[in-house]
C-alpha cells in the first residue's frame, strides 16, 4: 500500500497526541529545570569531614587568634577566637577571607629568577656563592620569631647583618628605645589602664596594632558616650574613621604634629599642669599655633581637656620624637596607662646592627611588606607567597601562604604584656614551597630547626614560671607540669601571656627637646596589610559598596 502525504500528517498527529501520554514532555520539563538549578559550570561544594581548629594569624605581626573551619583538609572559614587574650575575639576585615588567599591568582608556586622560572637548587647555589663572596643582609618584619633566630644564627656564622623592618606602630616606639636602651620589641602601650588618649593621627579605630584590642576597649568604654571613661582625642587633618568616631576631633594642618606637640608641651610647662621635669621646647606657642592652624587659645583649652582625666597617653602614627617627648612630659613612660616595657628581662635575642659594608646579597623574608625597598644594588632574594608585581627582586622565592607553615607568634608590637603563641601548618602547602628558614637550613645544615627553637622557647617559659597559658581555661604556668604540655597547648591554639611588667623598669630622660621632623602619613586603609594581594571578596568593601577606597597597588 502507498503512504500518502495525508497519512504522514495524520500519523504525526497521532504521535504528537501519544507523546502527551508518555513521561517524555513532563520529565524533560522537570529535568531541564533541575539542570538550571545545578549548572555544570558553577563550582561544586567541597565534601568531606568538617573540623574546627584554632591557631594564630601570621599575615602580620599582630598575632590575632583565628578559629579555622576545615572541610576535606582545606580551610573554608576563618573567625576570631572569642576571649582571645591578644585579639579579644576580633580580626581585621580582610582576615575573614584570608583562607581564599592561598588560591589567589597571584600566588607564587615556582622559583623565579629575573622573571624566568628557575629551581631551588639554582637559588641555593646563588645564595651560597654570594655568602662566600661578601656580606649578606637579612630583612625580617616579624622579629623575635624562631625563624628570626635562624636568621641570626646564619648571619653570625657567615658574616652579615640582620635588619628588622619596623611597622609604623613600632617606629612610633623607636624614640623611647633610643632614650631608654630597651629594644623596641620590648616596648608597648598599656592602653587598658589609660583614661585619655591623645592620638596624633594614629588610625586607632582603623587597623592600628592588634585590631581587636583597641576597638573592643573603645566600644566598651567610649562608644557614643558624651563623657566616656576612655577619652579619645584625635588630632588629624583629614576626617578619618577614627576622627569621625573620636570623643573630640582637632583639625590640624597636615604634618604639623611636631609643632602641636611642642605647643602642648609649652602650655603644660607654662601652666604647671605636669609634675615631670622636661626641657622647654624652643618653638614659641604663637609659632606652634600658626603652624598647626589653631589659635593659641584653642591649644590652651585643648591641653586643659587633655589633662582632665589622667593617666594621659599620646600616640603617634609613626616615629615622632616630639610626641614621645610629650609622653615623657606627661609622665606616661614606664607608668600604668602609658608606655611600658612588656618584658622584664629582655633576651635581646637578635643583635640588629647596621651593615659594615654594603651587602653582596640581600634576603627579604616573606613577612616584609611587598612595598619595602632595601635600597641596595646587591642581589635580592625575595621570599613571598604572593606576587605583588613590579618587585625588583632578582630571585622570587615562593613562600608558604596562610596557615601553611609552622611558626611561633611573639608578642605584637603594641602589646603591653609579653605573649607567645604557635601557628601550626593546618593547610597543606603546594609543592615547591619553602620558607626562608628552610632555605637557609638547606644551605647550612647546622642551622637550628624552627620546631626545635619553638620547643626551646616553651622550655624557657616553663622555667620562668611566669604568666599563664590561655586555652579552654587559663592555666598558670606554675601549675603546668612540663614544657611539653605547654607546647601541646600552644600548638592547639592557646596563648601564653606573661605577667604585667613592673612599673619603673622603663626610664627616659630628656636633655633637650627633640629636633623637628615630619613624615608622610600612611594614607591607604590597607597600607598596613603586609600581603600584596587582597582576598577576592574584599571587592565587597571597595567595589560593590562605597564603604572604602580601593587599596592602591593591591589586587583582589
Amino acid at each position: 500500500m502507498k503512504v500518502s502525504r495525508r497519512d504522514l500528517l495524520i500519523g504525526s498527529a497521532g504521535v504528537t497526541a501519544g507523546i502527551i501520554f508518555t513521561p517524555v514532555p513532563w520529565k524533560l520539563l522537570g529535568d531541564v529545570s533541575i539542570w538550571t538549578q545545578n549548572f555544570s559550570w558553577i563550582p561544586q561544594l567541597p565534601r568531606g569531614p568538617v573540623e574546627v581548629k584554632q591557631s594564630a594569624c601570621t599575615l602580620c605581626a599582630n598575632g590575632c587568634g583565628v578559629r579555622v573551619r576545615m572541610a576535606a583538609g582545606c580551610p573554608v572559614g576563618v573567625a576570631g577566637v572569642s576571649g582571645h587574650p591578644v585579639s579579644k575575639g576580633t580580626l581585621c576585615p580582610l582576615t575573614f577571607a584570608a583562607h581564599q588567599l592561598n588560591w589567589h591568582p597571584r600566588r607564587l608556586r615556582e622559583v623565579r629568577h629575573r622573571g624566568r622560572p628557575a629551581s631551588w637548587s639554582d637559588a641555593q647555589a646563588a645564595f651560597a656563592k654570594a655568602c662566600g663572596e661578601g656580606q649578606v643582609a637579612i630583612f625580617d618584619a616579624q622579629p623575635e620569631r624562631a625563624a628570626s633566630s635562624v636568621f641570626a644564627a646564619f648571619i653570625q656564622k657567615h658574616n652579615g647583618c640582620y635588619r628588622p623592618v619596623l611597622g609604623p606602630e613600632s617606629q612610633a616606639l623607636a624614640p623611647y628605645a633610643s632614650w631608654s636602651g630597651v629594644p623596641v620589641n620590648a616596648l608597648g602601650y598599656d592602653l587598658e589602664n589609660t583614661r585619655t588618649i591623645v592620638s596624633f593621627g594614629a588610625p586607632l579605630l582603623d587597623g592600628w596594632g592588634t585590631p581587636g584590642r583597641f576597638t573592643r576597649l573603645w566600644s566598651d568604654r567610649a562608644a557614643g558616650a558624651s563623657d566616656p571613661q576612655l577619652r579619645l582625642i584625635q588630632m588629624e587633618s583629614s576626617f578619618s574613621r577614627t576622627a569621625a568616631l573620636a570623643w573630640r576631633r582637632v583639625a590640624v594642618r597636615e604634618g604639623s604634629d611636631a609643632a602641636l606637640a611642642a605647643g602642648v608641651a609649652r602650655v603644660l610647662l607654662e601652666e604647671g599642669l605636669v609634675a615631670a621635669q622636661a626641657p622647654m621646647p624652643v618653638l614659641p606657642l604663637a609659632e606652634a599655633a600658626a603652624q598647626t592652624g589653631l589659635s593659641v587659645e584653642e591649644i590652651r583649652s585643648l591641653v586643659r581637656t587633655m589633662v582632665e582625666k589622667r593617666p594621659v597617653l599620646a600616640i603617634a602614627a609613626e616615629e615622632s620624637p616630639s610626641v614621645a617627648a610629650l609622653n615623657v612630659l606627661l609622665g606616661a613612660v614606664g607608668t600604668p596607662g602609658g608606655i611600658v616595657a612588656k618584658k622584664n628581662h629582655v633576651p635581646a635575642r637578635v643583635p640588629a646592627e647596621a651593615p659594615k659594608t654594603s651587602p653582596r646579597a640581600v634576603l627579604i623574608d616573606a613577612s616584609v611588606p611587598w612595598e619595602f625597598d632595601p635600597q641596595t644594588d646587591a642581589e635580592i632574594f625575595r621570599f613571598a607567597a604572593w606576587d605583588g608585581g613590579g618587585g625588583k627582586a632578582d630571585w622570587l622565592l615562593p613562600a608558604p601562604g596562610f596557615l601553611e607553615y609552622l611558626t611561633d607568634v611573639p608578642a605584637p608590637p603594641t602589646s603591653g604584656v609579653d605573649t607567645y603563641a604557635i601557628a601550626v601548618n593546618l593547610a597543606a602547602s603546594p609543592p615547591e614551597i619553602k620558607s626562608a628558614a628552610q632555605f637557609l637550613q638547606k644551605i647550612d645544615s647546622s642551622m637550628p630547626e624552627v620546631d626545635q627553637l619553638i620547643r626551646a622557647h616553651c622550655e624557657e617559659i616553663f622555667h620562668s614560671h611566669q604568666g599563664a597559658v590561655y586555652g579552654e581555661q587559663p592555666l598558670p604556668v606554675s601549675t603546668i607540669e612540663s614544657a611539653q604540655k605547654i607546647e601541646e597547648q600552644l600548638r592547639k591554639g592557646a596563648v601564653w601571656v606573661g605577667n604585667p611588667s613592673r612599673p619603673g623598669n622603663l626610664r627616659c630622660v630628656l636633655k633637650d627637646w627633640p629636633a623637628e621632623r615630619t613624615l608622610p602619613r600612611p594614607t591607604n586603609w590597607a597600607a598596613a596589610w603586609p600581603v600584596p594581594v587582597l582576598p577576592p571578596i574584599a571587592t565587597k568593601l571597595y567595589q560593590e559598596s562605597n564603604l572604602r577606597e580601593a587599596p592602591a597597588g593591591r589586587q583582589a
Partner: protein
Amino acid sequence: MSDLLLIDRRWIARGAARSSTLRFALWLAPWIFLLLLGIYAAGLCLYYGLNQTNMDNRFAFGMWIFLDLAIIAMGAGAFFTGFLVYILKQKDLKPVLNSAVVVGLTCYSGAVAVLMVDVGQPLRAWFTFWYPNTHSMLTEVTFCISCYLLVLILEYIPVVLRNRQLRKVPSFLVFEHQFHKLVPVLAGVGTFLSFFHQGSLGGLYGVLRGRPFAYRAGFAIWPSTFFLFLLSAIAVGPSFLMLVTATAEKVTGRQLVQPGVYRKLGFISGVLLAVYVAAKAVDTLVWLNITSPSVGFGPRDFYSYWPLSSTFLFAAIVPLGLLPAILLIAPVTARKRGWLLCGATLACCGVLLNRFVFTIQTLALPTLAFDEFLSYIPSWQEVATFGAVIAYGVIVYSLSYRYLPLFEEGKGAGQHVSLG
C-alpha cells in the same frame, strides 16, 4: 495588474486591491532587519545573563516592564471591541474587530516574549503554574495573560482560515464555520480574563507597601490602581485601534472603515477617559493626603526631584487626560478626523506616561533616609529587544492585512474607486 507584479495573487482575497509583491517586500525589509537585530540582542541576554542590560539591584525593573505594561494596555482594544460587538451587540464596530484581534495578539505575544527574556531563569518560569502563590498579583497576571493569549490565538484562527487558499480545504471551511459560533463565547472569556490581568497589572504596583509612591489603599484585596489600570486600558484601547487603522489607511492609501466607526470608537474612548481622569484625580488626592502621610511620606518625597517633578502628575491628568477626553467627545472636534486622531494620540501618550511613572519613577525614588534618587538608561540590548517586538507587530499586521480579510473590503470596493 499582471501576475509578474503580483506573484502572490493566488493568496490574496478576490477583489481586494494590494500593492505589488516587490513593494510589499521592500516595506517589510527594514522591519525584518529590526526583528533580527532584536532577536540577536535577546540571544545575548539569554546566553550571558541580564548583565547585558543596564538594570541593577535598585532598578530591578527597567524599560522592558514599562513598555510591556504599555503595549498590554494598548492591546486592550482587542478584548474590549469583542466585548462591545458580541456582548453589547454594537454590530457597527464589527468592521474593526478582526484588526483588533490582530493588534491584541501581537501586543500580548510580544509582551510575553520580552518577559521571557526579562526573567533570569526562563526555563523555570513554569514553576509559577506548578507552585503558584495565590496571594501574588504577578501570579494573577501570569495566569490571565497566558490564558488570554490562548484565547487570542483561538480568535485569530478563523481569521486565518478565511484566507483564499485555506478556504479551499473543505474541512477547514467546515471547521471555520463551526468555530465561528464559538467566537462570542471566546469574547466573553477574553473579556473576563483581560478584566483581571489589566487590573492586576495595576495591582502589581498598588500592593507595594514598601514603595509609598506606588502603594494605594483599595477595596477588598485590590488596591485602587487595579481599577485605574483597567479603566485606563479600556479607555485607550479603542484610541490605539483608531490610530492603527488610520495608519493602515495612510500606508495603504485606501479607506478601510467608515468614518462613523472612528467617531464611535473615539466617543467610547473619550467617555471612558473622562471617567478615568476623574477617578485618577480622586485617587491622587486620597493617596497624597491620607495613604502616604500615614507612613511618613509626603509630596516632597515624591516630587522634589528633577525631572520627575509634579509637572508629570499634572501632565498625566490635564493635557494627556482631560484634553483628549474633550477632543474625543465634543461634537465640534469629534467630527474632524484630524482632531479625533490627535485626541487618540494624546490619550495613548497619557497612558504611556502613567505606566512610565508607575514602573520607573517608583524605583527611582528613594525610600530610606540615606537613599539617593537614581537614574537609569537602558542598554542597546534592551532597546533592540523591544524594537523587535514593534517590528514583529508591524510584520504580523502587514501580512494579515495582505492575505486575510481584516476589513470588509468586498463591500466597500465601490468606494475605493470613488475615493481613488
